[in-house]
């Protein structure tokens, strides 16, 4: 008897009728809500691909990132699942959302003579902080700014494979591997700036190697990549140079600093000395905090949960800790919420368009209600659930 019922259920899932009416209704509602010109085939795609010209009416729509930009800008910045999605769909589309638009509008209106402002994206796990940061970084890139993008500050704090005592300051430690990787990616992103900016100071690396002042920044970076041992020192030098030069009125470039997982700078780390004493200061982190807290034309960061914070803690106060909050103060916190109704609709239509929602039941109304229930409109949960449906 139970088998009989099971076969009934199987028959129901297999012989469904795809309801075109409901998807048509969804599209009409989209058109009314967006109030743009009626697009013949896709209401969820924005006509405007340039982040500078995107305004409030494009919220919820997807805009395409050109693949050339992705190769130069994001050798290391995008989340892993998003990179796989780009590879599968053969295009890189990002959703225009309110937090990113807000920070971009602030950046457009900044007064460069005053000290720079810091913006902090915060939100629940998987709500789209890293993607908003990447959106802002893309805007900075299209405006021609110099982008200093640290993809994940937690990588510098935990799971360290090699640690060397620093030659510059004996109480600090270096991480050659991460430093060289970061320098390599920095070089890919900012090719055209490397020859323009000149160093103002003479740097001595070993007895026979030194860099004269007035030499282009590209040489410094190459030095760091080829000589792995001194790469952390190079990172420090690069950050110092950029900070000094961008603050001056005669410099012709704007510096944007984007750090993902900035609460790692003040949180606990898993690196300890051999005798398990208190963890030593790490060179790269010290330079980065120095850079963030003084000067620079613009800074945007995100916080992420780390090993030692509880899962549900997402507010800046809890994640940054007292020390971090005091040193970051004043900053502008920008909250990144889960998808709204309109954004969810847009995401759903995008997945349908890209043939990603394959289960016949997921295209019905009940399937959609179940998706909303299971994911709670959280972007990463929705992505994970739709991946196997």
């Amino acid at each position, binding site marked *: *008897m*139970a088998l009989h*019922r*099971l076969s*009934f*259920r*199987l028959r*129901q*899932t297999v012989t469904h009728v795809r309801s075109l009416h409901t998807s048509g209704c969804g599209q009409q509602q989209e058109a009314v809500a967006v109030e743009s010109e009626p697009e013949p085939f896709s209401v969820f795609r924005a006509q405007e691909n340039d982040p500078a010209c995107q305004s409030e009416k494009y919220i919820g729509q997807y805009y395409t990132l050109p693949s050339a930009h992705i190769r130069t800008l994001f050798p290391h910045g995008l989340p892993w699942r998003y990179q*796989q999605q780009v*590879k*599968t*769909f*053969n295009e890189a589309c990002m959703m225009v959302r309110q937090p990113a638009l807000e920070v971009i509008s602030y950046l457009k209106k900044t007064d460069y003579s005053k000290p720079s402002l810091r913006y902090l994206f915060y939100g629940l796990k998987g709500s789209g902080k890293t993607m908003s940061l990447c959106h802002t970084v893309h805007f900075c890139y299209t405006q021609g700014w110099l982008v200093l993008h640290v993809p994940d500050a937690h990588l510098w704090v935990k799971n360290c494979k090699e640690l060397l005592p620093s030659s510059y300051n004996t109480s600090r430690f270096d991480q050659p591997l991460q430093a060289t990787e970061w320098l390599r990616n920095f070089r890919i992103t900012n090719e055209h700036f490397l020859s323009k900016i000149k160093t103002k100071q003479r740097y001595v690396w070993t007895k026979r190697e030194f860099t004269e002042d007035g030499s282009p920044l590209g040489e410094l970076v190459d030095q760091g990549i080829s000589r792995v041992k001194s790469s952390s020192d190079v990172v420090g030098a690069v950050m110092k140079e950029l900070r000094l030069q961008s603050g001056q009125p005669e410099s012709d470039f704007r510096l944007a600093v984007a750090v993902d997982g900035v609460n790692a700078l003040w949180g606990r780390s898993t690196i300890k000395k051999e005798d398990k004493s208190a963890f030593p200061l790490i060179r790269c982190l010290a330079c980065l905090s120095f850079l963030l807290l003084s000067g620079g034309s613009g800074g945007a960061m995100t916080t992420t949960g780390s090993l030692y914070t509880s899962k549900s803690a997402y507010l800046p106060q809890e994640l940054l800790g007292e020390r971090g909050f005091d040193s970051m103060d004043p900053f502008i916190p920008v909250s990144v919420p889960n998808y709204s109704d309109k954004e969810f609709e847009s995401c759903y239509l995008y997945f349908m368009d*890209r*043939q*990603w929602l*394959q*289960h*016949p*039941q*997921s295209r*019905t109304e*009940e*399937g959609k209600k*179940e998706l909303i229930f299971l994911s709670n409109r959280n972007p990463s949960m929705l992505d994970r659930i739709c*991946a*196997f*449906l």
Partner: protein
Amino acid sequence: MAASISGLLKPWTPRVFLVRWSRYNPYYLEPEVRKEAYSTPETELSAEEKEQRELKALRPIKAATSGVNSSVFSDPVLSKFINMLMTDGNKVLAREIVTQTLESIKRKQVEKYHKAPEGKKEEIECNPYTIFHQALENCKPVVGLASIQKGGKYYQVPIPLTDNRRRFLAMKWMITECRDNKHRRTHMYEKLSQELLAASVKEGNVIKKKFELHKMAEANRAYAHYRWW
């Protein structure tokens, strides 16, 4: 037989009630999981369905296992596959593996779809569920072999298989093939996705195993009269 016993036994609850086991008093009825069964109004039911409902109001009902759910995305064949993949009761891991398998199948197919020219797009099957069901169908053997003793010797006799047995054999072969004969360092979901994609187009080691079984059965056709059922 169950009916006669249930006539004798009154509804009783033992002192220690084992909810998760499958050995219930035959008096107990199966639970109804589908949402549609509860949302149809009184007028649309036929006479026997009304009788069923009244019976359910009186008789005790078995506890539902944790594997069944009323989601629209639930698939009994897939649940069976997850249960067969599970070891040491680690259903979470088994489910993870199967969902990652479905995701990787879908990713490969959708990538092919987007890179294909316009004419070829309709031929590419992107739905991982249809691929999974197709692969299982292709792996199911038609006849099986049983070891029957006659005159002191054991003979391999071809016998017909029930539907359940065929489905079980297909899933078992698929899982053992992926566990044993693949490279040690690949993930289970990768191995499964490769094997399922191959089986859905009738290639791969599992299909080969099925054909070997058929050949053995064909070769032992002469002993078919040893079967007495």
